[in-house]
């Protein structure tokens, strides 16, 4: 009876000798609850939180995206009910140039940042695997400290590094010989160069910052994967005279494919939604050309005058894009043992 309602995970190895009556598998004192109900009772709090704070708002944001919700609807005194406007929010958003630049920013940033993060992270992971124990621990502690820095603090730190007057980046660029600086950038004096006023340079900083803060996670995950690969494989490759590059693509990469799949999808999810770093970098939703979809949605909904409906429409579009991008991953998880 009880056994049918219980998943037998890892229970096979040390179960009671077959001579014993099966009943002894059950707890002696009945808990007074039908065992079939126990999992549901355990799930109640978690399910309630998820339903109230994630699922219900998800439906609501969809509804709001078809409504007009502004000051008259959200004011405290005598609020008006929301007007149903059909697809109007969506058509207006699609006519807005900022939407298209935001979409372009979101996608190109994700592609560049994910590629760089995975490449650098993997390289550092492979490097860590070759180091002595003490050296690799030291480097791991260092890079993981960078990873642990809160996103808002990251934004603040990198703004300071790229500060126009006293930033260390402008100081370093001033060190370049004038002829080289002129040839490369068409200028020799960098003092006063503002980096956070323009979309291109904002994204340059953002990419560097996100790379800096997220490659450690990739490196450490790759290192953990590498530790699981038997060294005999590498010895065999060495005996056969395989180059390190070839060894990586013929042995390491195929064996670590599952690790890379998870890391890629996680990086995509994180980089598509980047908000805090970008928001801090440009000090709020200021440079419209530098918006991504997250910041654009926020700006529409919460910058005066609030246009919640159109903010919701942008959020719905971002969600749909994310779900499509990650559908592959969810299907992969469904097929695998993970859910059984």
């Amino acid at each position, binding site marked *: 009876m009880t056994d049918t309602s219980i998943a037998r995970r890892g229970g096979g190895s040390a179960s009671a000798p077959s001579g014993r009556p099966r009943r002894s598998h059950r707890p002696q004192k009945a808990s007074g609850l039908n065992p079939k109900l126990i999992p549901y009772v355990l799930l109640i709090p978690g399910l309630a939180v998820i339903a109230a704070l994630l699922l219900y*708002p*998800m439906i609501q944001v969809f509804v709001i995206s078809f409504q007009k919700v502004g000051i008259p609807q959200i004011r405290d005194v005598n609020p008006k009910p929301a007007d149903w406007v059909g697809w109007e929010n969506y058509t207006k958003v699609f006519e807005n140039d900022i939407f298209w630049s935001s979409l372009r920013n979101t996608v190109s940033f994700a592609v560049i940042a994910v590629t760089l993060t995975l490449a650098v992270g993997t390289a550092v992971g492979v490097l860590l695997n070759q180091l002595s124990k003490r050296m690799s621990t030291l480097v791991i502690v260092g890079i993981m400290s*960078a990873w642990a820095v*809160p996103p808002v603090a990251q934004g603040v730190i990198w703004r300071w590094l790229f500060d126009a007057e*006293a930033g260390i980046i402008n100081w370093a660029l001033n060190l370049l010989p004038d002829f080289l600086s002129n040839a490369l950038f068409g200028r020799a004096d960098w003092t006063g160069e503002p980096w956070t006023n323009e979309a291109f340079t904002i994204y340059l900083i953002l990419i560097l910052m996100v790379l*800096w803060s997220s490659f450690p996670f990739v490196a450490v995950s790759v290192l953990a994967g590498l530790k699981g690969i038997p060294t005999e494989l590498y010895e065999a490759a060495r005996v056969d005279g395989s180059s390190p590059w070839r060894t990586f693509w013929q042995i390491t990469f195929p064996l670590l494919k599952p690790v890379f799949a998870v890391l890629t999808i996680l990086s995509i999810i994180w980089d598509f939604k980047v908000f*805090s770093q970008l928001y801090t970098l440009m000090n709020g939703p200021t440079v419209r050309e530098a918006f991504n979809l997250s910041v654009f949605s926020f700006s529409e909904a919460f910058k005066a005058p609030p246009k919640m409906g159109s903010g919701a429409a942008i959020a719905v579009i971002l969600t749909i894009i994310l779900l499509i991008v990650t559908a592959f991953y969810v299907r992969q998880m469904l097929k695998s043992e993970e859910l059984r």
Partner: protein
Amino acid sequence: MTTLTTPGVKRGRDAARTRKRLRKIALNGTATLVFLIAMFPVYWMVSTAFKTNDQIFTTEFIPFPTSFTFEHLDRVLTEGVAGNSIWLYLRNSAIVALGTVALGAIFSLLAATAVARFKFKGRTSFLITLLVVQMIPAEALLIPLFLSVKRLGLIDQLLGLIVINVGLTLPFGIWMLRTFVAAVPKSLEEAAWIDGASRMTAFWKVLFPLVAPGLVATSIFSFITAWNELIFALVLMSPDGYTMPVALQFFFGQRGTDWGAIMASSTLMTIPVVVFFLLVQRRMVSGLVAGAVKG
């Protein structure tokens, strides 16, 4: 040492040794470079926090704060920003993060046990839901939750922020903890049952201690997420209820930027997380129950 005058065989062996040593130097050199690049922004934040304004606002490069000062720390802790001392924002952040951890730990432990220990109708659907809700961007939840919180009169309540953070962290928390629960062999609990323990006793005395490292790992994740959360705190709170991420936004004024104060504040916000994280990192990895049943 390699001496080039030695005869043939030894010379070959020496060359191999030299190559090996060069390789080691190259590896360690690259590793040191990676370490320095990763640490530099953090170091620069901390060192700026302890420099005098003369050494901050300069076009020269001053690697160490030779004019070491506590004036910025002192200023942010007394004058602060947006009308309050940084203490208040640190306290708010701590309340929200710890509240999120406490509630989240209980909820995720119960749900993870249900999913990892029982087979029941709707289990797969629940797991799919967990996976899918993690893809939802916070911005999509922001608008409806803002309207609901406003309607419920919970604006400017730290409790409201805690509850929302629990919602944001719970799906991943359950997802992560579930593998820890599943890793504890069922036979351990069954042994306790045979010895006459009730389900509850077996849970608390057997399962719980073994899952504790997993719970620590999950809690760290929730703590960091809640500590770092910007967008909900920004929209739902007024100055007295701001958390650190929101407070940091207010340093950038019209009349130049007080970099010493910003770096002092962001140091205060960063150091606890980094230290906390580094302290438990080893336990996170070494945790689990390797060899609890099999000797």
